[in-house]
């Protein structure tokens, strides 16, 4: 773990450390979330959409997120494409090469569950969560670049919730609607009249 995380653990025990911790925590969360550098582990079709999302039309750099080809320099590993059993040790190893704190986006159905290759395939890994921990599951075969950008923005909320103090986890505030939020137009279907 990085120095700041040790600092967080020791600050917690100090009297008055909580105030400093909260400030530091907020700043680090912001800093980490605003600069998500992605490591593309592009294997198949999804890699095309990953490339598209960092290129001219969708331009990922707008969000401060740049692709780097060296896992040592990256925060978020984007597994884009099918992972086979031959590739699985490589994925594991690349994940271990990344410095903490690190996050993983499983991009595309193949990485979520095996997708179209779930049944009858002898060589496909059924979901990369068998190998590495996954933070964001992004469905689609392949997901559109907009969907991928949304995944990165969702991850932002998750990173902000991550605290440098071990006992200080906060709930993730997502921009997605909660389950009990009424959907648009729901009243019309039930009430039959526009309010």
């Amino acid at each position, binding site marked *: 773990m990085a120095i700041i995380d040790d600092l967080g653990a020791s600050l917690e025990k100090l009297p008055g450390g909580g105030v400093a911790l909260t400030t530091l925590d907020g700043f680090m969360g912001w800093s980490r979330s605003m600069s998500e550098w992605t490591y593309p582990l592009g294997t198949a079709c999804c890699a095309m959409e990953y490339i598209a999302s960092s290129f001219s039309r969708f331009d990922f750099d707008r969000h401060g997120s740049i692709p780097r080809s060296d896992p040592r320099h990256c925060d978020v590993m984007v597994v884009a494409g099918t992972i086979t*059993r*031959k590739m699985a040790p490589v994925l594991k190893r690349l994940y271990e090469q990344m410095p903490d704190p690190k996050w993983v986006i499983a991009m595309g159905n193949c990485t979520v569950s095996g997708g179209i290759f*779930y*049944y*009858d*395939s*002898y*060589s496909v890994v*059924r979901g990369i969560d068998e190998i590495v921990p996954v933070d964001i599951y992004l469905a689609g075969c392949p997901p559109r670049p907009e969907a991928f950008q949304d995944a990165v923005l969702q991850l932002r909320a998750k990173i902000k919730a991550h605290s440098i103090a071990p006992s200080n986890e906060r709930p993730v505030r997502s921009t997605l609607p909660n389950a009990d939020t009424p959907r648009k137009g729901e009243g019309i279907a039930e009430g039959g009249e526009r309010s």
Partner: protein
Amino acid sequence: MNAEELKDRLCAQYPDLCESLSIESGRATLVVAAQDLHACAADLKDMGFDFLEMLTALDWGDEFELVYLLRSHEMAVSMFAKCRVLRDAPRVASLVDVWPAANWHEREVFDLFGISFDGHPDLRRLLLPEDWSGHPLRKDYEDERIVRRPDYI
């Protein structure tokens, strides 16, 4: 040149091949015995079939069938050559010295069907990891990690 003309020409040039020639799905098809494969391939190459387009195998239970798709750029025609080997002794001569293109194709067939090619310079698994056991494209391949799709039909 179409398949009929090719068949006639092959017959004229190699009368002993004539009875094993037929036309299937629009292409001249030559059925060869496993022991004649190499000599026959060399003959076909001399005739102008300089391009090995595809090589694959089929699992017919107690026999494997090797399918070679050959093409001649000069004559602008393609033909099949087929050869059967017994499942118990899946060995056949390698054609790498005739068509270098056969190199990776034969490794792939070795990998997925377990057919050995005698005289291949570097016969190793190509697609699957080196430590894989079994040959998945055989019809009787079993692997406990495969999830079978429920049959809806």
